[in-house]
C-alpha cells in the first residue's frame, strides 16, 4: 500500500512531465513511455489485486454502474463549469496514468483531476487577488433602529397594560410596522457586490475624441498644478510621495512590476529550446547544465531564460568552424 501511495505521489509530478512530452509526441508514444515506467509490483500481488478489483467491480457494478456513469459526465461538466477548464493534455495524461496503475482506475483519475483543479484554482486566486471586503460587509450591518411608532408602542405597553374586553393586549399595528421596516431595509443600501452579476453592460463608445490632444494634456497639467496645494501635514506628504512613486504602497506587495504570466512548466522544462544544438557531445552536455541551472532560477523571467539560450546558440554557430577543427 505504501508503494502505491508513493507512486501516486510521484505520478502527479510525473503526469505534468508527461503532458509536456505529450505536447510534442502523439499519444501512442506517451502511453508507451508510461507503460515502461510502470510501478514494479510482484506478479503474485498483481494477480491478487486483479482478482480483488474484479470481485469488487462485479459486486459494486450494479449499484455503482449508474453512479460512475453519472459521475463521469458530471466530472466533465464540472471541468467546464469551473471557470477555467483543465488543459486537455493534462486530462489525457491523468487518464493514461490512471490506466497504468493496477487498481481502481476511475478513483485515481478523479483524484488526480481534483488535485490539478485545486492547483489551478489556487493559482487563479493568487493572480486575481480576490478577497471579500470585510469592511464593506460590516458597514452595511447597521444597528436596528426602532421607529418612533414602535418605541411609543413599547413604552405604552410597559406603562399600562391596555387590556381589551377579551383580556388581550392591544397591538397597535405592530405587524404592519415590522413588515414595512423589513421591506424598506431590503431594497435600501449600497450593494455589496459579493455575488457577481452575470450581466455585462455593453460599453458605449463614449470616447468620440480618439486621443486627447497635446493642448488638452497641457491644460490638464496646468489645472492640476494650480489646484495642488502643498501638503498640510505629514500624511498628505506621504500620500503625495506614494502617488509620485517615491514611497511604496503598504501592505507591501512583493510582486509589484513583476507580471510573469508564464506557467511553471514553461520555466522548468526548457529542453524544447535545445533543438538547435547537436544531440551529442560536450556542447550538449554544457547546454543541459545551463538548462538545469536556469530551471532552478526563480528570479529570471521566461523571456530572459530563452534569450540566454538563444545567445548560446548564436555563439556556438559562429564558432562552428573552430569547433570542427577540433
Amino acid at each position: 500500500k505504501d508503494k502505491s501511495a508513493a507512486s501516486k505521489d510521484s505520478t502527479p509530478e510525473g503526469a505534468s512531465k508527461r503532458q509536456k512530452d505529450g505536447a510534442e509526441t502523439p499519444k501512442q508514444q506517451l502511453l508507451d513511455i508510461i507503460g515502461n515506467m510502470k510501478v514494479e509490483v510482484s506478479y503474485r500481488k498483481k494477480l491478487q489485486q486483479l482478482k480483488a478489483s474484479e470481485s469488487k467491480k462485479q459486486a459494486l457494478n450494479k449499484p455503482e454502474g449508474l453512479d460512475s456513469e453519472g459521475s463521469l459526465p458530471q466530472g466533465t461538466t464540472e471541468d467546464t463549469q469551473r471557470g477555467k477548464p483543465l488543459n486537455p493534455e493534462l486530462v489525457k495524461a491523468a487518464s493514461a496514468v490512471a490506466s497504468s496503475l493496477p487498481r481502481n482506475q476511475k478513483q485515481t483519475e478523479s483524484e488526480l483531476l481534483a488535485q490539478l483543479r485545486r492547483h489551478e484554482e489556487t493559482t487563479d486566486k493568487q493572480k486575481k487577488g480576490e478577497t471579500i471586503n470585510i469592511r464593506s460587509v460590516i458597514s452595511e450591518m447597521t444597528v436596528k433602529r426602532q421607529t418612533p411608532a414602535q418605541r411609543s408602542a413599547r413604552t405604552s405597553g410597559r406603562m399600562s397594560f391596555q387590556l381589551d374586553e377579551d383580556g388581550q393586549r392591544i397591538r397597535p399595528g405592530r405587524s404592519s410596522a415590522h413588515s414595512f421596516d423589513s421591506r424598506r431595509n431590503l431594497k435600501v443600501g449600497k450593494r455589496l457586490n459579493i455575488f457577481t452579476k452575470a450581466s455585462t453592460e455593453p460599453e458605449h463608445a463614449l470616447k468620440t475624441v480618439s486621443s486627447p490632444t497635446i493642448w488638452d494634456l497641457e491644460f490638464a497639467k496646468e489645472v492640476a498644478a494650480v489646484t495642488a496645494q502643498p501638503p498640510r501635514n505629514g500624511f498628505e506628504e506621504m500620500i503625495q510621495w506614494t502617488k509620485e512613486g517615491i514611497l511604496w504602497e503598504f501592505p507591501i506587495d512583493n510582486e509589484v512590476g513583476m507580471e510573469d504570466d508564464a506557467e511553471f512548466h514553461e520555466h522548468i522544462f526548457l529542453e524544447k529550446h535545445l533543438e538547435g544544438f547537436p544531440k551529442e557531445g560536450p556542447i550538449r552536455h554544457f547546454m543541459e547544465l545551463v538548462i538545469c541551472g536556469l530551471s532552478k532560477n526563480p528570479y529570471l523571467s521566461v523571456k530572459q531564460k530563452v534569450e540566454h539560450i538563444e545567445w548560446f546558440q548564436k555563439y556556438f554557430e559562429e564558432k562552428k568552424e573552430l569547433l570542427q577543427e577540433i
Partner: protein
Amino acid sequence: MAAAALCWALRAARQVLPSPCPRQVRSYYVDWRMLRDAKRRKMAYEHADERLRINAIRKNSILPKELQEVADKEIAALPLDSCPVRIRNRCVLTSRPRGVKRRWRLSRIVFRHFADHAQMSGVQRAMW
C-alpha cells in the same frame, strides 16, 4: 530617509517635478570621480548578461580548451568599464571612497552628522 530621496534625485538628474511645492533636487554629481563611477555602473549593467555568459563558457571543465581560450580573448576585448570590479561604493553625498557603510551608502562622517541630528530613522547612540 534623506539619503534614499537624494539617491533617487541623483539618478533622475534632470527630471522636473510636476508638483509646485519646492523640494531640494540635486542635478549635479558631487565630483568627476562620482560621475565616472556612475558611468561604470551603467556600463556594467549593460554588459552584465554578456559577461555572465562568456564566463560560463570559460569556467568550464566540459568544453574544449581552445573554445575557452577564444572566450578569454573575447571577454578581454570588452570595454574596461564594463566589469563590475571597477565599481567603488562611494558615499552618496560626499563621494568619499573610504569609510562608507553599505546599508546607508553614506560615509562615516555624514552618517554621524545625520544621526546626531536625529535624522536617521532607528539609529541611536550606543551605550551599554
